């Protein structure tokens, strides 16, 4: 995935780092810290006196929104703007103590849909900024189709989300737009509701914002709201995604940025983590997602496109009830890498018998390879068979193989011979058989 979400704290840090370049006419205090516990916050206060001097606001910083409606923004103890350092630290420790349920959609103030339950681990702490509603504005930018689109509104916060169509001005720019063209167009299209005395500054800020979004390779950048008090800016809430493929050019510009997993994502199994680790180390590609580990049909498919059509075809024939995993290996993995990948899948699929007593099905599929040596990758799979043959026979596994490409005849012959020798139940097909037809064969048999 090229577009990755980053923490609010990191988004602010990146803008702050380049503030004078993009917003030379404005000031931003950049008073913000990211902590994982109350103790860490108290420690931070030794270096940052404002944490002791100013009333504070605390929010979880874990890629999800609607924090206010979920009751996860601390801005008052007795009354708004009276949160002390000690109160903030205590609140963090209390919230981080156990799992919390977070809702992602609301109808008015009533949560809808299923919540995600997970532990809160990261909190952003900032000064409480007293301001009036009419000082709040909205701005964001992202890619739509082939164009960059800038969204601006005179109303920030919840209001803009609830009245998007009436309240937001949208400006689309082709990638080739020059800075002059962009500035012209923004100046000519400042939302009418922006206060008259703020209009010129709003335009200046929007131009800088959009330039920062383009220059710094953001894929998505939103400030909702920002507060404009003359030339003083406060960034109350931010959401951002980076185009991580630009990472190699942005080492200096982005600084030390992290890509956290989303709140409520099931923690990955050790097997999946091991495959991810192996994937990161090789020039080839190794991917594994566990969908339903107790299910009957396992796939070990070469190639990104082919893995999708196998999954499609399984769903077409049998629905997804029986599909245990999705994944692919491609890009010419070594024999050793393929062996590791195959062992991981064989290990997972031979842990339990099918509750209904049926044989499990292993689809070793793939299209006709462009350059991957089929015999070489199959050698890795054969080595994994040798290790897991007894377990496979114990659980009952029927193997279907289909593959083409460089050296495929040898690969198919080797895997057939090995399976026969080990007493495994196997059927082997080459390019004369339609790529996904083994799925039909496997699932039509009774």
């Amino acid at each position, binding site marked *: *995935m*090229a*577009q990755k979400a980053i923490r609010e704290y990191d988004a602010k840090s990146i803008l702050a780092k380049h503030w004078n370049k993009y917003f030379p006419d404005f000031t931003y205090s950049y008073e913000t810290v990211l902590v994982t516990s109350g103790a860490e916050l108290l420690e931070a206060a030794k270096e940052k006196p404002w944490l002791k001097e100013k009333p504070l606001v605390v929010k979880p910083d874990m890629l999800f929104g609607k924090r206010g409606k979920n009751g996860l923004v601390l801005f008052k103890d007795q009354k708004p703007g009276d949160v002390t350092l000690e109160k903030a630290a205590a609140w963090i420790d209390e919230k981080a103590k156990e799992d919390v349920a977070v809702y992602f959609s609301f109808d008015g103030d009533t949560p809808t849909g299923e919540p995600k339950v997970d532990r809160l681990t990261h909190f952003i702490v900032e000064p409480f900024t007293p301001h009036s509603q009419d000082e709040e504005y909205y701005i964001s930018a992202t*890619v739509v*189709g*082939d164009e960059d689109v800038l969204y601006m509104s005179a109303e920030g916060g919840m209001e803009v989300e609830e009245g998007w169509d009436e309240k937001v001005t949208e400006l689309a720019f*082709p*990638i*080739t737009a020059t800075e002059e063209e962009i500035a012209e167009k923004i100046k000519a299209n400042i939302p009418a509701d922006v206060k008259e005395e703020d209009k010129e500054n709003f335009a200046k800020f929007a131009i800088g914002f959009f330039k920062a979004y*383009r220059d710094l*390779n953001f*894929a998505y950048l939103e400030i909702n709201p920002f507060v404009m008090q003359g030339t003083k800016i406060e960034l109350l809430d931010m959401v951002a995604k980076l*185009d991580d*493929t*630009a990472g*190699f*050019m942005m080492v200096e510009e982005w600084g030390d940025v992290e890509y956290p997993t989303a709140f409520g*994502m099931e923690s990955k199994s050790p097997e999946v983590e091991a495959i991810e680790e192996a994937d990161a180390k090789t020039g080839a590609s190794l991917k594994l*997602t566990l*969908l339903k580990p107790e299910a009957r049909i396992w796939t070990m498919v*070469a*190639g*990104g*496109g*082919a*893995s*999708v*059509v196998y*999954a*499609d*075809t*399984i*769903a*077409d024939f049998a629905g*997804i009830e029986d599909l245990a995993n*999705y994944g692919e290996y*491609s890009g010419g993995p070594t024999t050793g890498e393929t062996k590791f990948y195959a062992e991981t899948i064989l290990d997972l699929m031979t842990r339990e018998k099918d509750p209904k007593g049926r044989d499990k099905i292993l689809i070793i599929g793939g*299209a*006709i*390879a*462009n*350059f991957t040596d089929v015999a070489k990758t199959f050698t890795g799979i054969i080595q994994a068979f040798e290790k897991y043959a007894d377990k496979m026979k114990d659980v009952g596994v029927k193997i279907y193989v289909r593959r*083409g*490409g*460089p050296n495929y005849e040898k690969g198919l012959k080797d895997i057939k011979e090995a399976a026969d020798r080990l007493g495994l139940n196997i059927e082997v097909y080459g*390019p*004369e058989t*339609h*790529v*996904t*037809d083994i*799925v*039909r064969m496997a699932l039509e048999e009774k």
Partner: protein
Amino acid sequence: MGKLFTRDTQAIFWNNNKTAIQRMLDYDYTIKRETPSVAAIVAPTSSNKFEKFFWGGDEIMVPIYKSTAEAKAAQPQADVLLNFASFRTAYDVTMEALNIGGFKTIMITAEGIPERLARGMNAYARELGVVVIGPATVGAIAPGAFKIANIGGTIENIINSKLHRAGSCGLVTRSGGLFNELANIIAINADGIAEGVAIGGDRFVGSVFIDNLLRMQENPDVKYMILLGEVGGTEEYKVIEAVKSGKITKPIIAWCIGTIAKYYDSGVQFGHAGASANGDMETAEAKNKAMAEAGIHVPATFNDLPAKIKEVYEDLKAKGVIGEIEEPEINIIPKNRRPKNFICTISDDRGEEATYAGFPISSVATPDTGKGIGDVISLLWFKKQYPKWATDFIETVIKTVADHGPAVSGAHNAKVTARAGKSVVESLVTGLLTIGPRFGGAIDGAAKYFKYADDNNLSPKEFLSYMKKEGVPIPGIGHRIKSLKNPDLRVTGLMNYAAEHFPATPLLDYARTVEALTTSKKENLILNVDGTIGILMVDMWRALGYSEEEINEFIESGTLNAFFIVGRSIGFIGHVLDEKRLAMPMYRHPMDDILYDVKKAEKID
């Protein structure tokens, strides 16, 4: 009209990816192309000038250049750039090629080029009318004409999938892995493809489905099209629009993969970076449904695609839109091929008679051929037939440098060795071994430094101060006894010849202005015979049309010294034979001619 590639299309391959290039040349040989499809390789860090590849059982050399600009200048007919640079440099390579111009198609293989760069690059190419294939693609193929890199896989698979000759389907896929598979399906169920493109898996690719299908609509060889799309994006809707508006009239068979995605939330990434649905409209199911409604042939499932292809193909055949295809003859690549350890580009002894650069020896040897030693040198050293004024000049040089008496170091060495009882060849070699920077080397040095000064427009005064800074006496200037008033007649002879026969002598003219300055300081600082030869050789090559770089290469590789070596060998052999004839005894240098100054070695603790 409408064809991406022809049998004459040639590419510049950026990055010396030997396996992929060999696959292209194997394909070329198989389909009996006359020229290799790779005209040049760009490898910025390579110091080689060419790379060897098999051409059937033989080998050919593909030139290597350090930059795209050099490659394009040398091979202007190559209008395809195969950009195999990494994701870090692929953008720069593409932009440079777009600015150089003259490329019709640029294919980019790297996956994960920063999105903003990819968008800018694609937009710029579109503005210039250049077709971009990729990024993140395995390429494209026009069967029977031109194949990019690894697309189609092995040569066996290419023939099995009928990718060695044009069929009647236009194929566009996103996935490179499934491209081969589709080609195979089409070969089994129809008559193969006329043109195929894998557009690439990144989110922002250059040419999209609609660009390729509109071109195929114009290509008379394409009778129907197959589109294999993916979940995510809205590109398929542009195709639907084109069908509805009548811009595309040829039948299309289409399928979007990734129908499974609807069962899972966005946490599961199926397939490519580009494959992620934002909203219902981008799901595979919605796109398949919309395409079917627009009259595009959409199978019920991916597994039914072969049957759908067969149905459409048979129908077009029955209607007479598609005829029979004549199977062309192909070359078979030998099973066992061995790379050659040596290369020879100057002479050949395999035929009836050995040749010098294509000329049988008898055609240059005897006097009636009108050819002399100068002609033989021009053939064997430069692989060119030089005009008579040049070959005569070469002979004049050889004659001029043939000998300079017994006292010069080389002749002296040869004589001493001969007197030690050694053979002609041993004695000659000891003489030749003295040739270098101090003996004979002034020819090289004069050519090098005078050319440098002339190339950089240094005035004689600037040149002198440059040489002073370098700490080098000017090579080719100065004689032991000769001066302007008492000229070296060998030099006069060479200059007169050049004045009469050379089309122009710009470097000599410049050298004379330098000589005017040096002789004003000291009488004997004249342009000597070494200097005159070196300088006139440069003028000769310039008049023969060599580029300044080629001439610099001659100088650096020691070609000028070679004239001295050939010429002076005549003299050395004369001295050796002279010694043999005289039967002179072993030579021992008189002791009173040696200053003995030997001190006792100090001890170091």
